[in-house]
Structure formats: structure tokens, C-alpha cells
């Protein structure tokens, strides 16, 4: 097991290195000029000399491989560089927003699981009845509705019927848990709907498959209570693919977050990223992309490890 974990972690390094090369190369070869965007973006009349000076200050005049080496070297010591737009350290900018985005992501995942497992189970147990039909329509809809639009509709409803407007400032959880949850539950719901839809569909189809197995019939023949058959025998075996899907869908969760943060006026990682792209803030874009990619790979790794815990037959070597 330990060997497997070490092996997987070592395999992550070349992938992340590839991501770093790709994003860095794309930025330098095809990207716009961050200095131009910053100084002339609003039509300001800035002399070429000043622009050149700024370029030297940001290290953009150096050869690409030197810049790349400097960035990698910095990251090895935990230094992601400074934002080309604000001049503040990238790590500081990210850290101040990470809590919010992470909290919404976790809440969305929890919501999705809490919705998906009972709905998927009901749908499978009452296959082809109206309960099943309703749940299926709800879950197919979840794949089609854009999360940012769902967020707008949620705000619209809250505004019209409850006169509630998303607050402009963010309340950290430790400061006022109630306020914080009341603020973040809606974006989490908007993002989590798609998530729960995918998981519900997976839950339904795997549970239907598992219920056909011989051991379910055996359990029923032994006279085990139906509830126990479903919970103990069927559900525990149907969880594996559902967990996989939750991991795979994490990519969509981040995507939903990037767009939904704009709707709810949340100053999180997504907003930071969109701003960085709009401003050609190279250091910010490359660090964020690498960070998100690393996070994504780690999540999938964690899910692989969870298999072994959920299904003792799986042994990693």
C-alpha cells in the first residue's frame, strides 16, 4: 500500500511538470503583453521607454527558459512570485480567497451527496413508477441547467419573495457561522445541483445492477428485512461508482464555481482567475492553473485510495 502511494505521488510530478511547461509556454508564446494591458489598456499614453522599464522590472525581457527556471525554483521554496497587476505576492492573493471557494466546494459536495444517495436509491427501488420518473427528470435537468443561471434564478426568487439580497461582504465561518452558512448555501446549491444530478443517475444505475446480484436474492431468501437488504447488502456495494463519479465531476464543480462566484458577488478563486485572465496577469494565471491542476490530481488520487477502504477486495501494489 505504502509503495503504491509513493509510486502514485511520484507519477504526479511529471504530469504537473507537463502542466507547468504547457501553461508557461502558452502564456509566453501566445499570450498578450501584461505590461501593455496594464499601462495602455485604458488608452493611456505611455512612452515606450516606460514600458520597457516595466518589462525589465517584471523580468519579461529575460529568455523564456530563464523565466521558467526562476518560477519553478521559486515554487520549490513556496514562493509563487508577485502578481503582475497588483504587485502583491500571488500566494497571499490566493490564500485570502481560498477559504471561501473551498468552503463552497465542500458544501456543494456535501449537498450533492446528501441529495443524490436518497434520490438515487428511491429511484432504483421504485423503478418505472412516477417517483422514478420525477427523479429522473430532475436529474437530467441538472445536467442541462447552467449553474450560473440557476444562481441568478435563486437570487431572483429570494429577492422577490424574501427580499434577501446577497451581501456584499463575506462573513468568515468562525466569525458568524449562521451568517456565513446563510450566505454560502445558495451558491453551493447552484453549483451542487449538477453534481447531485450526475451522482443520482450513477446511484440509480449501479443500485439497479447490484439488486440483480445473487447475494441479494440469497439475503431475501434468508428472510432478512428488506430495509437491511437494501442498506447493508445493496447500498454498500453500490457506493463505489458513485464515489468515482463524485471525483470525476470535481472538474465541473470548479468550473461551476468560477462562473457562479460572479453571480453571487463572491470574491473567491474563480473571480480571481477570471480577473487574471482579463488582465493578462501571467504570474497569477500560471500559479492558479498549476494549483488547480494539482488539487484536481490530488482529489482523484484520494478517491483511488478511498476505493480500497470501501471495497476491501481492492489491493494496491
Amino acid at each position: 500500500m505504502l509503495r503504491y502511494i509513493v509510486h502514485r505521488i511520484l507519477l504526479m510530478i511529471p504530469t504537473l511538470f507537463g502542466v507547468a511547461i504547457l501553461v508557461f509556454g502558452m502564456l509566453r508564446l501566445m499570450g498578450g503583453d501584461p505590461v501593455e494591458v496594464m499601462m495602455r489598456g485604458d488608452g493611456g499614453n505611455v512612452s515606450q521607454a516606460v514600458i520597457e522599464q516595466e518589462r525589465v522590472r517584471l523580468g519579461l525581457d529575460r529568455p523564456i527558459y530563464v523565466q521558467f527556471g526562476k518560477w519553478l525554483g521559486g515554487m520549490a521554496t513556496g514562493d509563487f512570485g508577485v502578481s503582475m497587476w497588483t504587485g502583491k505576492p500571488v500566494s497571499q492573493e490566493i490564500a485570502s480567497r481560498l477559504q471561501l471557494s473551498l468552503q463552497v466546494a465542500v458544501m456543494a459536495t456535501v449537498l450533492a451527496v446528501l441529495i443524490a444517495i436518497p434520490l438515487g436509491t428511491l429511484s432504483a427501488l421504485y423503478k418505472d413508477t412516477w417517483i422514478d420518473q420525477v427523479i429522473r427528470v430532475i436529474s437530467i435537468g441538472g445536467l442541462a441547467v447552467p449553474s450560473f443561471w440557476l444562481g441568478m434564478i435563486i437570487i431572483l426568487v429570494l429577492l422577490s419573495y424574501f427580499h434577501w439580497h446577497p451581501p456584499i461582504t463575506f462573513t468568515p465561518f468562525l466569525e458568524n457561522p449562521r451568517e456565513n452558512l446563510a450566505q454560502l448555501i445558495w451558491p453551493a446549491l447552484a453549483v451542487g445541483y449538477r453534481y447531485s444530478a450526475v451522482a443520482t443517475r450513477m446511484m440509480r444505475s449501479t443500485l439497479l445492477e447490484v439488486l440483480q446480484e445473487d447475494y441479494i436474492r440469497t439475503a431475501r431468501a434468508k428472510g432478512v428485512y428488506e430495509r437491511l437488504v437494501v442498506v447493508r447488502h445493496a447500498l454498500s456495494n453500490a457506493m463505489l461508482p458513485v464515489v468515482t463519479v463524485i471525483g470525476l465531476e470535481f472538474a465541473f464543480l470548479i468550473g461551476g464555481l468560477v462562473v457562479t462566484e460572479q453571480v453571487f458577488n463572491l470574491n473567491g478563486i474563480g473571480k480571481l482567475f477570471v480577473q487574471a485572465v482579463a488582465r493578462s496577469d501571467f504570474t497569477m494565471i500560471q500559479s492558479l492553473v498549476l494549483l488547480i491542476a494539482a488539487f484536481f490530481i490530488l482529489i482523484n488520487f484520494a478517491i483511488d485510495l478511498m476505493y480500497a477502504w470501501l471495497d476491501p477486495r481492492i489491493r494496491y501494489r
Partner: protein
Amino acid sequence: MSAVPGTFEIAYKVPRRRHPVLAFAVQQPLGAAGLAIIVLMLAAAALAKWVSPYDPLAVDYGGILAPPSWQHVLGTDNFGRDVFSRIIFGSQTALSVGFLSSLGGCTLGAIIGVASAYFGGKTDMIVQRFMDVILAFPIIVLALAVVGLMGKNVVFGIDWNLIIAIGLPMVPRVARVVRSSALAVREMPYIDAARTAGFSHARIIFRHIVPNVVAPYLIMLTASVGQAILLEASLSFLGLGVTEPTPAWGLMLSGSAIDFYQQAPWMIVFPGVAISLAVFAFNLFGDSLRDWLDPRIKI
């Protein structure tokens, strides 16, 4: 019915020959419903000029934020533009970007998948690692990065860099599915026979392998169009996709639409319904197509 103990009748029905489209509609009613919506959207996009009651770009300051009425079925926006006409013209943007990016992304993915499976060994290994790198990017992050980096490149009224940005994340996903199908085909005796006969790689690939991976390719293609429409809407909403004055559904929701939440909810509700309906239709059709062609394929 002769009930001889210990024997049983085999119910054998001669299958009726139906037109394939009709057969699909009968076996997959939900998929047929999706197909009907898609056809309707295609017709609306193609005939937009004649179907839409107003010019989608015509500004009318006398009639801004008008609620839905017989004159303006879905109301007007903050420039007095007819929302219904803008939604009809928006289908042109959604469908063209959706189809072009899916066609490009899925075709490139399929080529890489087939080549990777056919040549195997080191080639396969290197290609797959490269695909892993692209897969490590969450979809919208990759698309945003490409859009942000490459800017705009409008030819024939279509932003080709946007097409690349939306198509690129599909490539590794399609490549993976097609590769696994092609790997199974590669082991077939007729491939060995073709090799023994001394056929070129190109001939074996195009004549013997490609026809066998058309089903997964088509399934991925239809499923991708819905995702592409969703992604285009998200990018346009962020202001990094289609830009004004082109009518696009995501764009209709962005910018000032937020300020008119209470005054003009129709500005927000209807474009979102259009996006959802379009994606819904392609998902339904793609799902049913999979069940019909090859239920084992995992999208």
C-alpha cells in the same frame, strides 16, 4: 399453444423493417423528443431572418424593459431589443459554436485515440501522458486560459479561437473512449490478416479500424455539442466568449442583465431556458443514441 410438459415454445417474431429514424423514435421516445427539439432549433437558426419578429440588434429606447406582451412575446431588454428575436438569433451562435468545436475536438480526439491504440508501445505511452496533462486542467480553466491567451480571431463572423478553446478540453476525453474501442479492434484476426497481406498502416487504419469506432465517435460527438453550448454560454457570460452586439444566450445573461433582476426578470429567465433546453435536447439524444448503438460505452 401446445403445453407439452418439459418443452417450451420459443416466441420468435420476424423483425419488421422500419426506416432507421422511425425505429429509433419507437425504441427511444425520449431521444426522439431530444432530436425533435434539435431539429426545431436548427430550423429556427437557419430561418432566423424570417422567423424572428424583430431585428435582434434594433434598439428602441421608447420601449425598454417592456414585459412580455403580444407585441413582444418575451419582452424587451434594457435597450428595447426584442428578447424573443435575440433568442432565435442566439441559436445561430450556440449551434455553430457547439457543432464546430465538437466536430473539431472530437475528430482530433478520435484520430489521436485510433493512432495511439494502433501504434501502441512507446507512442501510446507518450500520447497518453500528454493527454493526462490536458486532463489535469478543469474544463473551464483550460478554456478560459486559451481564450485569455489567444484573444480573438474572427473569420466569417465566427471566433475561431473560441472554437479551439471549447474544443480542446474534449480531445483527451474522446481520445480515451475511442482508444479503448480501437484497442479491442486491434486484436481482431482480420487486422492480423490485413497486416499479413502487406497493407499500409493508413489503409488498415482507415479501412479496418475507423469504421469500427464510428459508434463511440458519433455518441461522443452528440454528447459534446450540449457541453459545448453550455461552455460557450459560460464563457460569454464571463465576457470572454462571444461579444456584443452578436446575440448569444450567455451574453444576454451577462453584464447589465443582473441590474434588472426585479424590473425585468424576463431578461434573465428566457435566455437561461433556451440554454437549458438546448443542452437538455442534446443530452437526451446523445444518451439514447448510446443506448441504441452501443450501451457499453461510458460517456
